[in-house]
């Protein structure tokens, strides 16, 4: 399969350090790619670059073969949609109004949203399963429902790349799984290029086709989740002891414990940094 997003030496320098440090990525359409790493590893920052929100300090990104930051902002927004974590509105907004925001890159000041835009918004609402809430305000929804509204807003952008920053944050177990099942189906059935920053490694095991593990802004491993997420790597990147349980016909699950000896993990992390 062809590569959709091609990043080389992507570096984001901010606050005196490289938050993302020379990252190479090749991300394919029709797959879910999980970006993994401890807090502060650079997941969100990398996602913002891939979403076209922030330009990298150095390095190159190309999407569909063209220089990503050579494109106009609007044309980037027509290709890639970003779902942030904890996006909140200060002003009261209905679900329908919130999802309609996704059409902004496709409309102009003089030409407002037309019937085609309305149909796409309705479609996005129904794909995300929030049609029933269309008339309610965001504030009246549960966390899981609100997350689906944000997903619907991103889908209303009719993107070819969908970037999700910790899409399962604050969701109950069932809502986590349904959200991830939905985006992996969008990748598989609609050929969407899905990139999700995830905290839960078991989610990556269950739903990702490809994982990229960041540690202190660098890529320390990438590949199929079952091959990459080994106890050694998890210990090095997250500082925990991991046990991987294989399951018959299902993806493996990982259990975590605090390490018995702090020195071991420091050693492992040290090896990783080098």
């Amino acid at each position: 399969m062809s590569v959709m997003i091609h990043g080389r030496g992507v570096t984001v320098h901010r606050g005196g350090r490289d938050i993302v440090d020379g990252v190479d990525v090749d991300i394919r359409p029709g797959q879910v790619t999980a970006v993994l790493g401890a807090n502060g590893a650079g997941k969100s920052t990398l996602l913002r670059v891939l979403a076209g929100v922030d330009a990298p300090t150095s390095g190159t990104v190309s999407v569909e073969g063209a220089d990503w930051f050579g494109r106009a902002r609007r044309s980037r927004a027509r290709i890639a949609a970003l779902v942030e974590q904890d996006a909140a509105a200060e002003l009261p907004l209905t679900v329908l109004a919130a999802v309609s925001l996704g059409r902004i890159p496709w409309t102009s000041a003089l030409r407002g949203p037309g019937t085609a835009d309305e149909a796409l918004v309705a479609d996005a609402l129904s794909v995300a399963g929030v049609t029933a809430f269309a008339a309610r305000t965001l504030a009246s929804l549960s966390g899981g429902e609100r997350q689906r509204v944000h997903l619907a807003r991103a889908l209303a952008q009719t993107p070819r790349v969908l970037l999700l920053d910790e899409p399962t944050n604050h969701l109950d177990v069932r809502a986590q799984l349904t959200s991830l099942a939905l985006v992996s189906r969008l990748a598989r059935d609609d050929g969407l290029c899905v990139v999700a920053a995830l905290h839960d490694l078991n989610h990556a095991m269950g739903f990702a086709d490809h994982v990229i593990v960041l540690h202190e802004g660098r890529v320390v491993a990438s590949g199929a989740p079952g091959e990459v997420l080994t106890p050694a790597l998890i210990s090095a990147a997250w500082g925990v002891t991991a046990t991987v349980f294989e399951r018959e016909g299902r993806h493996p699950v990982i259990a975590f414990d605090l390490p018995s000896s702090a020195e071991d993990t420091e050693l492992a992390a040290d090896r990783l940094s080098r």
Partner: protein
Amino acid sequence: MTSTPALDQRPSSPHTGPARAGRGSNARGSAVGTPLAAALLTLGLVASLGAAVTIGPADLTLGEVVASVLSHLGVGDSPLSAIRDGIVWELRLPRVLTAAVVGAGLAIAGAVMQAVTRNPLADPFLLGLSSGASLGAVAVLVLGVTVLLPAAAFLGALLALIAALVVAGPGASLAPSRTILAGVAVSSLFAALTSLVIFWSATGDSYREILSWLLGSLAGARWPAVAIAAGALLVVGVPLLLGGRLLDAFSFGDTAAAALGVDVSRTRWTMLVGTALLTGGMVAVSGSIGFVGLVLPHAVRLVVGARHRVLLPLSALSGAIFLVWCDTAARTLFDPRELPVGIVTAIIGAPVFVALMTRARRVS
């Protein structure tokens, strides 16, 4: 693994319209009713303008007013005596029109300010504009060169804006919270300077004039005032109306706006400066009239929702109607004494604002 039925069912044909599952009473995302609301408000504004001109010590009928206005537009002859005709054309009409334009301008400025700073409490005077304008106005009033008042007020507002932006800088990021704090600091400084000027040099009559200006008054509004305010509304206000789509993009913050293809810092700068210019134009002719820009957008938002393509024009119409009636009340309630209209807007606006806040708390 199973997922909810809602997630599994992807219809083969997209809905042509959003389902209105009427849970929750506020089906305000709908566009239905917006053209109707706009039409009603426009009618209301025209009726208010006509009615407000007839109200006052000199009894005039609507027919007389219309005939007088038409005669000045070159259609027919005025049925009124020269004095009564002068009351319509030289005093009341320009004053009522100024009230409408200033009300519209302040409401637009408030709605834009609230969207760009993502602060529901933002108002047009947020960046120290009113205190800057006051300093300019008071300075010329004290010096006795009243002719320069609009220009001085406008320059004062501009100076305050520049000061606030310099304090809020550096860089183009212009974080909303920093901007607001900078506005507070500049406001305090300019207010202190204004007090100093008044304390030092104001005497007798100029006190009354200064007070009336500081509280906001349309008493002196003649045709030049209409021209200044309407000019600002046309040159700055109308382009701001067209920016509704960009303001919507800010609903979920800067990152979300950027991800929707909006140039965040350029848009925010343009909007803030535009708002400041618009407010400056209004303040120049009316003094600082509070609460119009704060309360009107809130009230309209409750009815039509937060989409700015709809919110901005409807706020402008409502603000115009509101200020026309407030000013009519200000000049007639305690006849022959006249209240500064800012007192009326505050007396009405403050309780309404409290009511809106209580309501908002209940909703969320």
